[in-house]
């Protein structure tokens, strides 16, 4: 980050000319701005703050048409050491996640892992509709160094089809990142405000799976991903084996504080899911102390990795 000039220094250097311009300005409301030196804010060097924390990004993707280079570029820029990545097929017309399809996805991840050894933590994608092939795929992927699973909206996480997969992951002591949605307005999951994706897992699905498998590790995907995070946190509160990652494009101001209050500092994970700036900005701007930030940026996910011996350092 040597290429960045520190904002505070820059401000010091430009303070005089700025004052000059402002004094000569004609804004009625701003006269006297330069007189009250005490009114000037303290300096805050955001990049210094960003670089202070080690980070594992718990939710990111590679795509056939996007090179992993861009991910690494953003990660370098924002001081992210490791990225948990997967490649997925969202359910939809003309898009079926058959064994051939999910294998191709995972090959993409394996390729990225090979290209940037030490940076990517692979997550296998599968479709439990294909039970046998899914279990085989888990073996193939984990054997080549993947550290967990990512599942999308083909089947809800509490569907019995998933049980063998969950049991396998329990054996492996690995986390399952599950796409999630909580698309209600108000009024629960009523059809008119319900999910656009009927098979996407909703908070109650996580609660049921977590209750059935208290020894499994679930990751509720992208709390900032367009869900009602207040509702989601309220539901997940009582299920200590459900973690939530803070990725997503909606960096709403109070989400992290709210999640902290309901889920506690040990169950929240830093993530981006394509929203690199938001993933970090939302954590930095929350009312967390340094120790809590450290946990969310790094330690919490590393502790999960430790269970399967895949921890960093």
């Amino acid at each position: 980050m040597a290429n960045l000039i520190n904002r505070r220094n820059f401000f010091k250097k430009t303070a005089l000319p700025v004052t000059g311009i402002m004094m000569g300005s004609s804004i009625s409301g701003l006269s006297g701005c330069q007189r009250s030196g005490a009114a000037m804010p303290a300096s805050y060097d955001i990049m210094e703050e960003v670089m202070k924390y080690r980070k594992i990004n718990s939710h990111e993707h590679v795509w056939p048409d996007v090179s992993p280079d861009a991910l690494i570029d953003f990660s370098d820029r924002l001081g992210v050491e490791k990225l948990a990545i997967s490649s997925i097929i969202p359910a939809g017309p003309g898009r079926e996640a058959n064994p051939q399809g999910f294998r191709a996805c995972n090959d993409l991840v394996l390729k990225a892992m090979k290209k940037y050894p030490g940076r990517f933590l692979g997550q296998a994608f599968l479709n439990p509709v294909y039970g046998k092939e899914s279990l085989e795929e888990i073996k193939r992927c984990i054997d080549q160094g993947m550290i967990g699973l990512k599942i999308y909206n083909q089947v809800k996480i509490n569907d019995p089809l998933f049980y063998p997969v969950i049991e396998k992951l329990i054996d492996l002591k690995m986390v399952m990142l599950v796409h999630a949605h909580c698309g209600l307005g108000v009024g629960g999951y009523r059809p008119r405000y319900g999910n656009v994706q009927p098979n996407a897992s909703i908070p109650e699905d996580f609660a049921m799976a977590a209750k059935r498998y208290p020894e499994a590790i679930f990751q509720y995907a992208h709390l900032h991903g367009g869900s009602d995070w207040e509702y989601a946190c309220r539901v997940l509160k009582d299920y200590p084996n459900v973690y939530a990652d803070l990725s997503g494009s909606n960096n709403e101001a109070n989400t992290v504080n709210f999640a902290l209050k309901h889920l506690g500092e040990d169950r929240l994970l830093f993530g981006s899911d394509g929203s690199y700036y938001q993933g970090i900005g939302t954590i930095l701007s929350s009312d967390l102390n340094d120790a809590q930030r450290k946990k969310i940026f790094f330690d919490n996910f590393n502790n999960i990795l430790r269970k399967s011996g895949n921890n960093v350092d």
Partner: protein
Amino acid sequence: MLIDINANTGHWPFRQTSCNSCRQLVARMDESGTDLSVVSNMNGIFYKNTQAANEELNEELKSDRSFNNRLIPFAIINPVYAGWKDDLDTCLNKMGIKGIRLYPLYHDYDLTDPSCVELVRYARDKGLIVALTLRMVDSRSRSWMDITAEWNLRDVIPIMKEVPDARYFILNIAGDIRLSQADTDLMIKSDTLMDTSGRSTSGLGNLISTYGAGKFAFGTHTPILDYLTGLLRIESLSERVADETIKDLLRAGNARRILGI
């Protein structure tokens, strides 16, 4: 003694209101001689997570000792939202609420939705009053972003049938107040107070002869409606319709009985 069973604090989104904090409310109470007000926080009508509004009210009430002696908090609960039972327990055990207010039209569920029936039974078991507001504002002059639906009096009957032994407040009685004879009898048998803020209570004398003086109590619906019309409906009753004893019931007696104070 004078008790207002229908006061609100908080922000009404669609129009500036001038008396919506506890401090302003208590000043208004002092000015008009109101000893106690039942209050909840209107933000809970619009927040998806209504508990945030209950917390705001509780904090405001704790911010000044004098509020404790003057304001009786009710919580706003949404029985289709996650965690409502935790919320209700917290409101009851830590915030000292005496009742709850439900806003099915704003929270978009039916009054007889199983979750709502469960909530009303739970409230009954906990000794809490259940308050239903027939409308917040006249739908004719509402904002286009506000809801269009209003209730008539008969619309609250289904929940009273489901849970006849709960205690109810029915607030801001507007619209059609006609009930069938069977529903009238149900209302008479129930432990219900209707407040005097609503426009359909202008014939209070008639209403008293139908339902009895024990069914009504002073209410303002402040800060949406003016502070005094509800009182005027009581105080201007002629001696022939309501003597001082009856007026005292309407001013405070009925409210004290049902609130247990």
